[in-house]
């Protein structure tokens, strides 16, 4: 069974999603019933789940920002990459 200490530790490591389901259920049960750490840890868990969803959606679809990279800057970048490739600092896979 989880103690308050191990719940906090597990939440800090953010590994509770990877725990086997009986352990995960025990952790959720603890957070649900424990009056000492319940509220705080429940908030941490809710925010971690929200952040995980944001992380996954952002990685898959890109960040939601309306600020394209200027085309002049893109051109400069292409030139810099070309220069790097010409200098031979590139090992093709």
């Amino acid at each position, binding site marked *: 069974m989880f103690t*308050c*200490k191990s719940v906090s530790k597990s939440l*800090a*490591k*953010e590994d509770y999603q990877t725990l086997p389901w009986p352990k995960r259920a025990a952790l959720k049960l603890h957070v649900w019933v424990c009056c*000492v*750490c319940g*509220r*705080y840890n429940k*908030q*941490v868990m*809710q*925010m*971690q*789940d*929200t*952040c995980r*969803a*944001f*992380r996954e*959606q*952002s*990685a898959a*679809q*890109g*960040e*939601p*920002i309306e*600020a*394209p*990279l200027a085309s002049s*800057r*893109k051109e400069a*970048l*292409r030139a*810099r*990459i*070309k220069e*790097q*490739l010409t200098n031979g*600092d*590139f*090992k*093709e*896979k």
Partner: protein
Amino acid sequence: MPAPSPDEPSAPSAKRPQNCQVPPPEDWVDLYGDYLYRYALSRLRDPSLAEDCLQETFLSGIKHLEKLDSSRDIKFWLRAVMRNKIIDIFRRRERQPTIDLGEDGAILDTALYKHTGIASIFPEAWKFDPRKLTEHAEFRDIFQTCLDQLKEPAREAFLLKMVEGLDSKEVCKVMQIEPNHLWVLLHRARKDLIKQLAKVGLDRSRNH
């Protein structure tokens, strides 16, 4: 979630699938430029820093391309390279010598906490579960907007720990702060963020 390090030697790998060819670096700007730039900008909030970070990422990617694990999508590998660059930029930032713990530090100041590690002051209850928003079609935009409204250095601590997934020790090292300062900054960020998210969430549920 431990971040994949692009500097790790590539694993002895399975045969690269036919559809997983690495595009030549000359095409990276067109293929991944906007995606990576938006990533850098969302974290650094400074267009010129984000542009520099993008250039460093591409050049570093070219240099270490032989380390790319053939089973990985190069887009996410470059994102991992950029993540390390962003953390480096945070590490190099000039910092305030001390962090004002304010009223959020009160929880850590009680004798019970100091001696047992048990917080005796309950944090304010949340009237809204932020997970409800994750199914929303505009969740990414909503969360990013709310995140942008956090004040520094709480935003930076929250980004590194909760969004980029660094462990607490690494965040303290990057930000050059003590663990109790990190705890307070995260607590403050969560408190401010939930206020923003709740406002958006409740407004939307009222309108639908």
